[in-house]
């Protein structure tokens, strides 16, 4: 990871790391600072909203009373032991979500500068110009770690400025930084494995999901499982109530090992290909490929299957645990309305919040899906199709509709997974229909979010990427609104605030129809604009 010491003439694999570093920084001179500032500002918002919410010890005590030992919250966020102080409450709510976001950030930066560059054939140019084969990866790791470190310093300053205890604040930001670094190394490995940037991101996403899942299982069951997860390690530092520094050894060691392993793999593989070589396929096309819609479906197939599988399995696991929660809750009196504000049934409230979280996640799929025409455009494949007798709108709309149908389907299947998981454990499948409907009811918010992406795509190819910023904004609104304090009008800006908290409340379809209609309007507008604009 250090700067190369060998002179360029020696042809060390690290030769040119400095150039690669400058090149990447120049390319991201705007994006990276913006992301780092965004990460800092987001935590700043959190902190500001807590100081208002939990300003007095009485507020904190009531928070503690309301959430302590609630296994649903423990599974979603983490153990509640530290909630008696403002620092502990802040750490409880920020550490898991900021850690996951840091991991996702690391994933995007590393893939963008390594596998994505290689896939587009640009890294060959650098290599041909005499750059060492490890230079780009080394520079990328340095840049990603640097950006994470800057964000961590920013968070630390935020905490200090708000009057949090210095040592514990440092431990908290170090724990989050550790997660980011571990996933920097993990992504560095994943980009060696597969030849495609998209698949590499999918792999890292699975690892992040697994880490979250192990942590949740460990916190609600056998503790050892949490120790298998980088998110568990961060949590085990217990900032602000039992400051433990030594678990930081784990992320530090893992980062070094993963980065070293990634470099080792990179030295041994061919440029342009992954460790997993694509197998030969059929010489003739399956009839389904010979129809434009069938072909678009094929292009999206991998991500549809992956996401559906993930949501279903996740739903099943949560459903199975859900019953467990009910059992514990019946014997627990410390539970108050904080979590189950809208319903007598705490499990249904828990499921409602799960639906919202996963609907936000599935919007990631939907945006990716409706923006397929955009990615075909930027990868210079669209012209090959659009030069044939295939209308621009017909083609793009096909992709959009596939993404809409698939996202609704996967949310319904998530509900099915929940119901089956619950049913297998309780033997009662009575909730199955309600849960499937509740999953499906999330679709309009997903469609509305994705239709805004369609609108941006219609405006210009360059504007399309802003859709991701929109999704991040909705996630931030949700995450702050669910724990902290935000003005109503800001909360109302997110489509996800308007989905009734089913299955905890009766389904009111009015907002769903309104959002569906709005999605249709934005989609139509996007398509009309797309028809009138140049192909990139």
């Amino acid at each position, binding site marked *: 990871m250090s700067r190369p010491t060998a002179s360029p003439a020696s042809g060390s694999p690290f030769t040119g790391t400095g150039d690669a570093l400058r090149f990447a920084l120049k390319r991201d001179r705007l994006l990276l600072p913006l992301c780092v500032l965004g990460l800092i500002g987001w935590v700043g918002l959190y902190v500001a909203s807590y100081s208002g919410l939990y300003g007095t010890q009485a507020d904190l005590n009531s928070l503690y009373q309301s959430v302590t030992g609630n296994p649903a919250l423990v599974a979603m966020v983490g153990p509640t032991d530290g909630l008696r102080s403002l620092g502990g409450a802040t750490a409880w709510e920020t550490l898991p979500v900021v850690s996951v976001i840091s991991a996702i950030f690391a994933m995007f930066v590393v893939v963008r500068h390594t596998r994505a560059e290689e*896939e587009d054939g640009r890294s060959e140019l650098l290599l041909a110009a005499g750059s060492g084969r490890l230079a780009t990866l080394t520079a990328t790791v340095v840049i990603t770690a640097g950006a994470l470190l800057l964000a961590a310093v920013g968070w630390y300053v935020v905490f200090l400025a708000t009057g949090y205890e210095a040592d514990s604040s440092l431990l908290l930001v170090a724990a989050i930084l550790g997660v980011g670094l571990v996933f920097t190394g993990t992504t560095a490995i994943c980009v060696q494995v597969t*030849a*495609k940037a998209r698949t590499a991101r999918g792999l890292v996403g699975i690892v992040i999901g697994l880490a979250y899942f192990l942590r949740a299982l460990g916190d609600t069951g056998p503790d050892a499982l949490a120790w298998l997860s980088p998110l568990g390690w961060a949590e085990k530092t217990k900032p602000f109530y039992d400051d433990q520094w030594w678990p930081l050894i784990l992320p530090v060691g893992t980062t070094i090992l993963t980065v070293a392993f990634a470099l080792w793999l990179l030295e041994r593989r061919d440029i342009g*290909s992954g460790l997993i*070589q*694509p*197998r*030969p*396929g*059929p*010489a*003739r*096309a*399956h009839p389904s*490929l*010979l*129809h*434009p819609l069938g*072909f678009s479906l*094929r*292009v999206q197939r*991998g991500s549809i299957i992956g996401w559906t599988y993930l949501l279903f399995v996740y739903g099943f696991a949560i459903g199975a645990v859900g019953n467990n929660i009910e059992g514990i809750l019946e014997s627990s009196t410390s539970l108050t309305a904080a979590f189950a504000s809208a319903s007598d049934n705490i499990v249904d409230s828990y499921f409602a919040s799960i639906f919202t979280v996963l609907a936000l996640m599935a919007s990631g799929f939907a945006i990716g899906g409706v923006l397929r025409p955009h990615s075909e455009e930027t*990868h*210079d*494949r669209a*012209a*090959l*199709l*659009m*030069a*044939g*007798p*295939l*209308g*621009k709108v017909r083609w793009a709309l096909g992709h959009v509709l596939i993404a809409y149908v698939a996202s609704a389907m996967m949310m319904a299947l998530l509900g099915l997974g929940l119901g089956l998981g619950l049913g297998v454990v309780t033997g009662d499948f009575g909730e199955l229909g309600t849960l499937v409907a509740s999953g499906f009811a999330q679709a309009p918010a997903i469609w509305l979010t994705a239709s805004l992406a369609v609108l941006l795509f219609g405006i210009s190819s360059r504007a399309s990427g802003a859709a991701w910023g929109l999704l991040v904004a909705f996630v931030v609104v949700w995450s702050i609104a669910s724990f902290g304090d935000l003005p109503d009008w800001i909360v109302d800006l997110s489509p996800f605030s308007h989905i009734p908290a089913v299955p905890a409340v009766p389904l009111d379809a009015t907002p769903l129809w309104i959002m569906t209609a709005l999605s249709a309007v934005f989609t139509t507008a996007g398509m009309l604009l797309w028809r*009138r604009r*140049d*192909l990139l």
Partner: protein
Amino acid sequence: MSAVIEVDGLVKDFGSTRALDGLDLTVEQGQVHGFLGPNGSGKSTTIRVLLGLIKASGGSARLFGQDPWKNAVTLHRRLAYVPGDVNLWPNLTGGETIDMLGSLRGGLDPKRRQDLIDRFELDLTKKASTYSKGNRQKVALIAALATDAELFIFDEPTSGLDPLKEAVFQECVKEITGEGHTILLSSHILGQVEHLADTLTIINSGKTVESGSIEDLRRLSHETSDPNQPASLEQLFLQVYEPK
């Protein structure tokens, strides 16, 4: 009878940069028309306007007498296009890609498809992600040449092919011109153009510099240079672009 391609004073601006600045281009039915110009002179931009992929900022472009921007879908039934930089779907094999692209135009002639695959020696079972640039180009070439289009538009179609396959391409073009098809061939390989084209348009900085039959243009350069030597296209080319 109107020309297959008629471009008149075509202007295309990308923001503040003017890519085409009053370009003229006429291609008659049955011609092989060479389209020459240095990198960045506007060949691909002209072709993208002709394909209706981008909208002209000024002047006119007509394909079979129609506006390519408005009538893209109907016009595309009559033409086949091969870009210079072919990018394919990484998960599809070459064979799947050829069939899929062919299906857009209602399917390929199976005999012709097989014949082209044999001549270009393409392994159809490989995923596109493992193809070299040349092999990706072969996929697009086979998918185009196996159609029965009236007009073929090639934008530097052989920049990744080895000399043997380049010769195969030239053979194929000769075959289809024998059948009365029209071809617009943008190229940076003078020998290729000299070998295949009947007529020629040379452009620079988005403007047409010379246009006419190859013979006329040879004669033109003849007069201005050494009268005893038959001019080659290369001389002509250098003469046009010689900074004066």
